[in-house]
C-alpha cells in the first residue's frame, strides 16, 4: 500500500495495482469454474448423463394386429378394421362460416350438423343436439364408429373443431349366422367365447415396443436415442367351416325355431371321412356389431348343451349287438307291451301294432322294448365301452370354449334300471357333437374320427395345416353297412321321418325325441326333437345333425328336425356337387311270420319259436 501512495491523492491506491488484484481474482474464479466444468462434463458425466437419458426415455407399446379368422374358402369371418370416432370442440364448431352465394355466413352448429350428416348419413337433429348439449365444452363425441373414408370426407368440409380419433374394431362380416361359433371381441380387445377365445394366443400376436427420448412438450427428440421392437401380428386361423353352408343352415334352424316356438335349435354339418365341421349353426344368436353382449347370449349351446341322446343311442346298442354277433338283421323278436326290468315296467310310446318284428324292424321303428331285449344281452362293460368308442362321454378335445364332455356313468355306478334306459338313450347326457359322432362312425364304415374345426393357421406368413384328426375303428364296415341299410328306412315314406328325405339321394338317419331335462326346473320338461343322418347312404359325403330344444308347437324329431335336415342336406349336396344316387335303397325285412319255418333249424321249428322274447331279467 505504501508504494501505491507514492502519487497524488492521499488514501488512494493506484488503479494499476487494483486492476492487477482484480485480474488475479478473475483468474482464480474462472479456474474454479473450469474445475467444476471438468467435474460436470468429464468426471461425473457418465452417471449424470445416464440419469438424464433415463428420464427422457419413454417406451410406447405398439399394438399387434389381431389375426383374421377365415372359413374354408378364405372368406373372412372376423377381421380387425380401422375405424374413426368423430369428436368435436363445440366452442370452435360454433364459429363455422360458409360462403353462401358469395357471402360469408356464420352457420354454426346447425350448418355443421347438416353438412356432417350429409356425409355420414346421421340424423342432423341428433348431431345438432349433441353440439348444443355440450355448448361451452371443449370436447364431445359427435359420431362414433365411421369408416376412415367417411372421416376423410368429413374432414374435407373443413369445419373448425371437428376431429377424429382412430381405433381398431373387430368386424364380423357374416353377422349373427357366425356369431356364436366365431365368438366376439369387444372394444376392450378381450376375446369372449368362440374361436376368438379358442385361438386367443395365436390370434393376438405379440405387441412390440418403441423406445425414444421425449422432449418437454411430449415431442420426440429426433436426434435422441431410439430403438424399436416391431410388433408381431397375430396368426390367421382357417376354419373348416363353409360360410355359405353355415348361413343356409343358420337360416333353416332359425326358421324352424321360430315356427315351432322352440327355446333354441342347432345343426351341425360334418364331413364323415375327415371329421371336418362344415357348418355349426345355432339360434338364437346375437348381433356382433353391438357394443355390449351378455354372457348368456355369447354362450354357444351347440358345444355347451348336453342332453339325453334318446333314440340316437339305439344305434350304438344295435351296432354293438351286431358287432358282438348277438343278433343279425333278420333276427326275429316278439315285442311285449310291458317289459318289467329293474323294478320298473318299461313301455313304448304306443303299443306295437305287430309284435313280430325283426331286429331291423325294432331299430327302424325305434322300439324301446326290442332295444332292451337285445341290448340286455350285452355285458355292462361291453355296452359301456361301445358308448365310449362311439364318442359318448369322450373328452372334449376340440378346444372350443365351454365345450362339454357329456356324461356317461361308468357301470359300477349304475342303478338297477340304468342299463335298460341307456340302451334306448336315457340316463346319460351328451352334446350334439358327440351324437353326430355316432352317425359319422356309421357313415365312415365304422371308423370314428374326432371332429375338427380348424384346418390350420398362417404362421409367419405360411399356411400350416392342422394334423388329420385321430381315427378309431369302432365297428366293422359290414356292421356299419347293415346299420345304414336299416336307417335308410327311417326317411322313407313308411318310416318315422319321411320329411327328412332328400329328392334324388339315398338318405339314412334316425329321429330322436328325447325327454328334456330342464336344469332350471330340476325335472324333465318338454322334449329335444332331433334328427341325425347322412347321405348319400351308399357313399356318405355329409353327416348332418339337427336338434330343436323344447318346441311348443310340434314334438317329434321327424316333423321338426326332419325338414331342416332335408333342406340343409339338399343344399349341401348340390353345393358340393355330389351326384344323385343311382341305386335304390336295399329292401329290409321289418316283420316276419311267426309260423314260417325257421331257416337252418330242424323242420317244424318256426321263426316264432326261435324269436327273442321276454324271458325275465337275464342273469349275468
Amino acid at each position: 500500500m505504501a508504494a501505491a501512495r507514492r502519487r497524488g491523492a492521499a488514501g488512494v491506491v493506484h488503479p494499476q495495482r487494483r486492476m492487477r488484484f482484480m485480474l488475479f481474482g478473475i483468474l482464480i474464479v474462472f479456474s474454479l469454474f473450469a474445475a467444476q466444468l471438468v467435474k460436470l462434463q468429464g468426471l461425473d458425466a457418465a452417471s449424470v448423463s445416464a440419469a438424464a437419458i433415463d428420464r427422457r426415455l419413454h417406451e410406447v407399446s405398439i399394438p399387434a394386429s389381431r389375426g383374421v379368422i377365415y372359413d374354408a374358402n378364405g372368406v373372412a369371418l372376423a377381421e380387425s378394421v380401422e375405424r374413426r370416432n368423430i369428436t368435436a370442440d363445440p366452442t370452435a364448431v360454433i364459429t363455422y362460416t360458409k360462403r353462401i352465394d358469395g357471402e360469408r355466413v356464420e352457420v354454426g352448429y346447425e350448418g355443421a350438423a347438416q353438412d356432417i350428416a350429409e356425409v355420414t348419413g346421421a340424423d342432423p337433429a341428433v348431431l345438432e343436439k349433441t353440439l348444443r348439449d355440450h355448448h361451452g365444452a371443449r370436447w364431445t363425441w359427435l359420431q362414433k364408429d365411421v369408416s376412415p373414408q367417411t372421416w376423410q370426407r368429413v374432414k374435407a368440409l373443413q369445419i373448425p373443431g371437428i376431429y377424429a380419433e382412430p381405433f381398431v374394431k373387430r368386424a364380423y362380416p357374416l353377422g349373427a349366422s357366425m356369431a356364436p361359433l366365431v365368438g366376439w371381441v369387444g372394444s376392450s380387445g378381450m376375446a369372449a367365447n368362440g374361436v376368438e377365445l379358442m385361438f386367443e394366443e395365436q390370434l393376438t400376436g405379440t405387441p412390440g415396443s418403441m423406445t425414444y427420448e421425449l422432449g418437454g412438450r411430449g415431442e420426440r427428440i429426433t436426434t435422441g436415442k431410439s430403438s424399436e421392437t416391431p410388433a408381431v401380428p397375430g396368426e390367421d386361423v382357417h376354419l373348416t367351416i363353409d360360410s355359405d353352408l353355415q348361413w343356409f343352415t343358420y337360416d333353416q334352424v332359425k326358421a324352424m325355431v321360430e315356427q315351432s316356438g322352440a327355446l333354441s335349435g342347432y345343426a351341425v354339418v360334418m364331413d364323415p371321412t375327415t371329421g371336418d365341421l362344415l357348418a355349426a349353426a345355432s339360434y338364437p344368436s346375437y348381433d356382433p356389431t353391438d357394443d355390449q353382449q351378455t354372457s348368456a347370449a355369447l354362450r354357444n349351446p351347440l358345444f355347451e348343451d348336453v342332453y339325453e341322446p334318446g333314440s340316437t343311442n339305439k344305434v350304438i346298442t344295435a351296432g354293438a349287438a351286431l358287432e358282438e354277433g348277438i343278433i343279425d338283421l333278420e333276427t326275429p323278436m316278439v315285442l311285449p307291451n310291458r317289459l318289467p326290468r329293474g323294478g320298473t315296467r318299461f313301455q313304448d310310446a304306443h303299443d306295437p301294432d305287430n309284435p313280430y318284428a325283426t331286429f331291423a324292424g325294432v331299430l327302424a321303428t325305434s322300439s324301446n322294448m326290442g332295444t332292451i331285449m337285445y341290448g340286455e344281452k350285452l355285458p355292462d362293460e361291453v355296452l359301456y365301452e361301445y358308448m365310449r368308442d362311439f364318442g359318448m362321454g369322450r373328452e372334449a378335445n376340440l378346444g372350443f370354449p365351454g365345450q362339454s364332455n357329456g356324461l356317461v356313468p361308468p357301470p359300477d355306478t349304475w342303478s338297477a334300471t340304468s342299463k335298460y334306459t341307456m340302451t334306448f338313450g336315457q340316463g346319460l347326457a351328451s352334446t350334439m357333437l358327440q351324437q353326430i359322432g355316432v352317425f359319422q362312425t356309421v357313415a365312415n364304415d365304422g371308423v370314428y374320427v374326432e371332429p375338427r374345426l380348424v384346418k390350420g393357421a398362417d404362421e409367419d406368413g405360411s399356411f400350416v395345416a392342422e394334423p388329420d384328426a385321430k381315427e378309431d375303428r369302432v365297428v366293422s364296415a359290414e356292421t356299419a353297412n347293415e346299420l345304414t341299410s336299416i336307417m335308410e328306412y327311417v326317411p322313407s315314406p313308411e318310416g318315422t321321418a319321411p320329411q327328412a328325405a332328400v329328392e334324388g339321394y339315398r338318405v339314412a338317419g334316425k329321429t330322436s325325441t328325447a325327454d328334456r331335462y330342464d336344469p332350471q326346473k330340476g325335472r324333465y320338461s318338454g322334449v329335444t326333437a332331433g334328427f341325425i343322418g347322412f347321405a348319400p347312404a351308399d357313399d356318405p359325403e355329409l353327416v348332418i345333425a339337427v336338434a330343436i330344444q323344447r318346441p311348443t308347437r310340434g314334438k317329434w324329431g321327424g316333423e321338426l328336425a326332419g325338414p331342416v335336415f332335408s333342406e340343409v342336406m339338399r343344399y349341401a349336396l348340390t353345393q358340393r356337387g355330389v351326384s344323385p344316387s343311382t341305386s335304390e335303397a336295399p329292401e329290409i325285412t321289418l316283420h316276419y311270420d311267426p309260423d314260417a319255418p325257421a331257416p337252418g333249424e330242424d323242420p317244424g321249428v318256426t321263426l316264432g319259436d326261435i324269436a327273442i322274447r321276454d324271458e325275465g331279467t337275464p342273469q349275468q
Partner: protein
Amino acid sequence: MTTWPVRRDEQGRESVAAGLGERLKSPVAPYYLLLGATALLVSIGLVMVLSASSVGSFQTSGNSYKVFTQQLMFAGAGIVLGLVASHIPVRVWKWLAPWGMLVAIGLQALVFTPLGVPFQGNRNWIAIAGMSLQPSEFGKVALVVFGAAVLTKKRKVLGRISHVLVPFVIPGAALLIGLVLAGHDLGTVLILVAITGGMMFGAGVQARYFVVVAALAAAGAAYMAIGSANRMERIQAWIGNICVNPDVQGCFQKVHAEYALADGGWWGLGLGGSREKWGLLPEPHNDFILAIIGEELGLPGTLTVMMLFVVIAYASYRIVVTSKDFFVRIAACGIMVWLVSQAMLNIGSVIGMLPIIGVPLPLVSSGGSALVAALLGMGILLSLARSLPGAKASLGSRPSLLRRTLAVVPAPRLRRR
C-alpha cells in the same frame, strides 16, 4: 508489419512463446484482443442461439429461425453501433457522460409509465414504436461512462469518501439502481452494484470501505434470505445438496443444466445435437445457453467461452496499465467489471456454483437490448484501446482493410502503360 515478430535465441532458433510475449506488449494488442474476443463470442452466440432456440421457435411459431433472425438483426445493429463507438474519441465520451446518465435514468423511469411492459414478474421493459427495449442494459453503459467521468474529475479528492460518493453514487448510481430494484430485476441490480463498486475499487478508494460495505451486504443478504422462503429455497438448491433429481422443489433448472453438461461430456454431442433444448431445460437460448454450448460442443466449448472472457479481462487490464488517462483507466475497469461479473454470475448459475440469479451471458445469450448494449460497451472499450499511447499511430499507419484486400487482385493493365 504483418510479419510474425520473431526473436532469435543464441542458437538462432525461433522462440514462438517469446514472440507471442513480444506481440502482446504491442500497444495495439488490447485492441486486437478485444476485437477478436468480441467477434468470437458474438459468432458463437449467434450459432448457439440458432441451435438452442430452433426447437422452441418452431413449436411456438412454426419457424425455427424466428428467435435467430431477431438476434441476427440486433447483432447487426450492435456491431454498427459498436464500430461507430470505437471511432468516437475519448473526449466525446467524457462530454457525453452526464447526458447519458440523465437519459438512462429517464428511460428507466419510463418503465413505470404506461410505456412499461411487465415480463415474468419484472418491470424492466419499455415498448416504443413496436420495439421492446430493456433500458437497464443501456443504464449499465451510462453508469460506466458517468462514473469514469465523475471519478476523473474527483481524482484529487478520492481519499475522502464523501467526494467518492457524491455525485457518482449519490444520486447517480443510487437513483438508477433504485429504479431497477423497484422493477424487481435483481440480476441487473447486482451487476450495477458490481460496476459501481468495481469502479470505485479500480479508482483506488481505500480498501477498508469495501470491507465495511461487504460486511454490511453479507449481513443484509443473510437477513433477507432467512426472511424469504423463496430465497431460502434457492440457497438450499445451491448449497443444500438436495437436488437429486429435477422434481425436487427449486431444482428443475439446475438439474437440467447438469444433465445438459453431462450429456455433452468431454467432446459434446455435436452442433445441433442437444437433447435438453427440446423443451426440457428452461431458457436454453438465454440464461442457460452455456449449458447448451456444453452439451453440443463439450468441454472445449465451455472452456473457450470462459477463456474469451479472460481475454477481455486481460485486454482491459492492459488498457489500465498502459493508459496515462485516468478516465480511460476507470472506464476500462468499469466495462470489464460489467462484462466479466455478469459472465461469472451467469456461468456460476449454470454450473451450480452460484444460486440461479437470472442474468444473460454477455455477447452470447439471446436478447436484443443486452446484445446491443454489450456491443456498445465493447465499442467504447475499443475506443479506449485506440487511445492508448502509440496505438493510434500503429493503427493509422496501416492501410485500410479494403485496400489490403484489393492488393491481391491483379492490377489492371491500364496502369502499366
